[in-house]
């Protein structure tokens, strides 16, 4: 029994780490400019399709195309900021919600139109099979995805904490006008936040592409969890989103195992309600 429980908990951690990466991108965008990006799941979807087409057209493994997927999604995010989001930065919250919600519908519609609503999958990837130790066994693709997610989340954390641009981004998040006085161009920082945010979701999509079905609405399955993580971890907190990701992954998988997989979201959302009720600023958020 303990063996099975341990297996389940670790499986939860593995998926939770990928959830965390999706949420890191979302929380970064929210933290820097207070905009809720409903189209964030679509960045993940685009990352998945980028991996799929690389594999389907040129037989390139998603892990090989991953750096290009990340760069491509960075460009998509930054461009989207320049073309659309920039215009609504000082608009009322409802306009911002409708804009990113509209983008979500647009991206899904475009994906359906261009690539059909069929479920696609990437097969025969480089990383395949299982890894076993101490009686526990995990799919190698899942372990790889989790490892990739940890490395990417760690890279974003390091970037924010130890680089010049990261400090500028954090300063803009704290006070845009005061940051401008330090010579920081807020517009550049916002575009950077969107680029990194989209790249995080894109990398998560690439990492999931070998184990998860790829279809135009796939973002929907992740965006709700990502919102929960952002609120749970504390709005704008990258480390908060990381720990919340692990927590939610474990609750989801263990809960599904002990109770019924159909109710796993009930548990996740109950946990969310509990935290919001007892600690509205989130686990690591500042009051």
């Amino acid at each position, binding site marked *: 029994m303990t063996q099975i429980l341990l297996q389940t908990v670790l499986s939860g951690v593995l998926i939770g780490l990928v959830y965390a990466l999706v949420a890191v991108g979302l929380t970064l965008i929210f933290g820097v400019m207070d905009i809720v990006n409903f189209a964030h799941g679509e960045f993940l979807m685009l990352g998945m399709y980028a991996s799929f087409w690389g594999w389907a057209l040129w037989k390139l493994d998603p892990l090989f195309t991953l750096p290009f997927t990340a760069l491509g999604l960075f460009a998509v995010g930054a461009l989207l900021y320049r073309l659309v989001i920039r215009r609504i930065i000082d608009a009322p919250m409802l306009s911002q919600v409708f804009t990113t919600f509209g983008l979500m519908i647009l991206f899904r519609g475009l994906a359906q139109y261009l690539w059909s609503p069929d479920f696609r999958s990437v097969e025969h990837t480089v990383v395949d099979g299982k890894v076993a130790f101490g009686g526990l066994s995990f799919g190698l693709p899942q372990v790889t995805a989790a490892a990739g997610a940890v490395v990417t989340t760690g890279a974003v954390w390091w970037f924010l904490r130890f680089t010049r641009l990261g*400090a*500028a981004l*954090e*300063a803009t998040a704290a006070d845009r006008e*005061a*940051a*401008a006085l*330090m*010579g920081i*161009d807020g517009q550049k920082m916002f575009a950077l936040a969107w680029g990194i945010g989209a790249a995080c979701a894109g990398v998560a999509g690439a990492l999931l592409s070998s184990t998860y079905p790829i279809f135009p609405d796939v973002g929907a399955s992740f965006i709700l969890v990502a919102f929960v993580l952002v609120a749970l971890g504390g709005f704008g907190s990258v480390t908060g989103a990381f720990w919340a990701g692990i927590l939610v992954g474990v609750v989801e998988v263990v809960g599904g195992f002990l109770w019924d997989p159909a109710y796993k979201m009930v548990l996740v959302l109950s946990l969310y309600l509990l935290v919001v009720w007892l600690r509205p600023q989130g686990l690591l958020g500042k009051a």
Partner: protein
Amino acid sequence: MTPLLEVERLTKRFGGLTANEDVSFTVGEGEIAGLIGPNGAGKTTVFNSLAGFFAPSAGSIRFRGEEIAGLPPEAVAARGVARTFQIVRIFKGMTVLENVLVGALLRHRAVPDAVARAREALRFTGLERRAADPAGRLTVAEQKRLEVTRALATEPRLLLLDEVMAGLTAAEVQDAVEMVRRIRDRGIACVVVEHVMEGIMPIADRMLVLERGRLIADGPPRAIANDPAVIAAYLGEEYRAPGA
């Protein structure tokens, strides 16, 4: 020699309200200029135009001979103008050192260099022992000092200080006065908006007096203190000094 800052006929209107009208003055290298005036006289509006937050409706602002009116704040900061806010706006989620580091990164792109520069600025303003503390936990006086430190870390030629002495105890005012003097001694010119007269009068080389958006006096502190127009603006006509 061109002065460091030349403001010429600066005018700023908000719809029908004229906040600044035809304001002209200059500030020389290493000079301390006090900018005073009753509430609503337009002092902060002048600062906002100088720092790039407002594009002036008319007039020009030349810094080291270059027109900077209408440039965004980050461009003005890059040219060597720094400011502090009347109500402190430090980066609350960061430590004291990180706050100053953000400023230092403007001139020093390598993080270790910028950290060294930030520490030096903290030593200068006496906040060094608070370096690792979260900025939000400082006292009001320390937060004001942190804002000045952060501005100094951008290595400005001109520092705009908006009420750094307001709300401080008498002892803290003395510290702040001493700090402004030491900043000037480093060759950084200061324009100081201040309500605390005993703070600014002894250290200012020149006083600029605004009333209802217009500059009504410009001269050495002693002359300003006896200027009938200034006394009228502050105390009302009936308090005009006898014989004035």
